[in-house]
């Protein structure tokens, strides 16, 4: 097998692909990449299928040693990538040789970075996906010493090496577009009015399951009989907290669902870090 070795892991590195589908009636979360705009780009640069599995790193990157010649691409958050200590660019194809070491520095912008390899990572597949999740895959995150299998490098392709220009809006635009959720109409007109356009501060409780915010919104919504939710569902708790469910969320929930994010907004939110301001906006 052709391998990439994890010398050290970052704050939170996982293998992700598009996630699990068709198994939610067994309580299995969707999982999958948080920012599919960035991950699709990483795979496209290498000519991979969009379903190819990649590394998703949050806040800091891992240190990887290659035991194979291959190609990689790095997209999403800018974490000062370097190959054998020499700075390399995001958003371009990079040739990597056996014994090369890929490392990262400090986070410059964004929060989640994607590392794609030619053909994608071939780690274990459970329930039709390689996305790591507790009690589904044998590991829920990458750790020092992990050996990650990939395809042979025979197919090192001729790829344009020029960096692709990224819309910086994706990282810096605070706007999160939402649609009305099933329980929005149960809010009083006054409460509705107060929620159409709100500024929110990402709290440090945010992770792959949900984003939370510092602000509180008074409401008298009753809990609902446990019903269905999706990544992007915005719940409002009795204490006034807004919870935006993300890719590793449960499949059902009992808090009122007042909004639903568009998929483009879900990608954008995934790049927001605690302390960031965002603006939730719903069309009237």
């Amino acid at each position, binding site marked *: 097998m052709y391998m990439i070795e994890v010398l050290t892991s970052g704050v939170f590195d996982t293998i992700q692909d598009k996630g699990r589908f*068709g198994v939610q*009636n*067994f*309580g299995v979360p969707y999982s999958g990449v948080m920012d599919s705009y960035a991950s699709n780009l990483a795979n496209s640069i290498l000519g991979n299928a969009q379903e190819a599995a990649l590394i998703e790193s949050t806040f800091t990157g891992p240190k990887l040693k290659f035991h194979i010649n291959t190609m990689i691409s790095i997209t999403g958050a800018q974490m000062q990538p370097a190959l054998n200590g020499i700075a390399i660019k995001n958003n371009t194809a990079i040739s990597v040789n056996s014994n090369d070491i890929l490392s990262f520095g400090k986070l410059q912008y964004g929060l989640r970075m994607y590392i794609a390899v030619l053909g994608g990572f071939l780690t274990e597949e459970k329930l039709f996906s390689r996305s790591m999740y507790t009690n589904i895959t044998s590991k829920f995150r990458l750790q020092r010493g992990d050996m990650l299998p990939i395809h042979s490098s025979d197919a090192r392709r001729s790829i344009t090496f020029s960096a692709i220009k990224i819309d910086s809006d994706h990282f810096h635009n605070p706007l999160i577009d939402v649609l009305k959720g*099933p329980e929005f109409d149960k809010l009083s007109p006054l409460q509705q009015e107060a929620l159409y356009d709100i500024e929110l501060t990402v709290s440090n409780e945010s992770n792959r399951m949900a984003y939370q915010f510092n602000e509180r919104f008074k409401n008298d919504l009753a809990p609902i009989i446990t*019903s269905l939710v999706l990544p992007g569902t915005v719940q409002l708790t009795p204490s006034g907290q807004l919870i935006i469910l993300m890719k590793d969320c449960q499949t059902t929930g009992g808090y009122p669902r007042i909004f639903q994010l*568009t998929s483009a907004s879900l990608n954008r939110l995934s790049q927001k870090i605690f302390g960031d301001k965002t603006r939730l906006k719903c069309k009237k």
Partner: protein
Amino acid sequence: MGYNLTYRHFSERSILVEWPSDINENILRDVLGFKNRLEHSNIKDIVQINSAYSSLLVIYVSTIDNVYDEIKRLKVEYSSRDCLDRLVFKLWEIPVCYDKEFGIDLEEISEEKNCSISQIIQLHSQPIYTVYFVGFLPGFLYLGGLDKGLHFPRKVSPRLQIKKGAVAIGGAQAGIYPNASPGGWNIIGNSPLEFFNPNHDIPCFAKAGDNIKFIPVDRDVYNQILMDVQNGRYHIKSQDVYD
């Protein structure tokens, strides 16, 4: 006869169908009947349908262009669902050991309810439960049918670690923890069965609409079943139930 359903555009790719907000078996059967109907319909754009107590989430392959047309199609399917095939469900026999070592909340419930532990075990293992849906954790069965005498509020602060297989009571519901996890339900016993196996394409033996009966077993039988389960030799007893 049918219920008065509401249909809403939920995400760009899904429509939420809601029944009157209530937990009962008639609604559950109608929810699962409609789901079955849609799964056998020729609406090709539907990729999956998720169910809960009184709702369905119909997920499409891509962004829904015309929501009103799509809702119209769903309504037609609902009104023609009387020519459904009869749904077949299973009744599963789930062995449970109610030893105090497992049933760490038995004494508290016994004191609060002023009834003996053997009465609790009897009340818990007598009814036939219904699986309303699987949620919270992969493989966590939400069971309806708990005897009123056993309704017991969830813990104010959840425990950090509940044992795999823990048989639990949360308010008016019964459930089983498929894996070790944090949780706020009251623990009265443990089942040696595997409720979630990610190595199987169908990772849970039970599904929404199935029935469950708890069979009290002593520690020796529990240990024997646990060994058989680990060696892949245990066959869970079940029978077909016709709607």
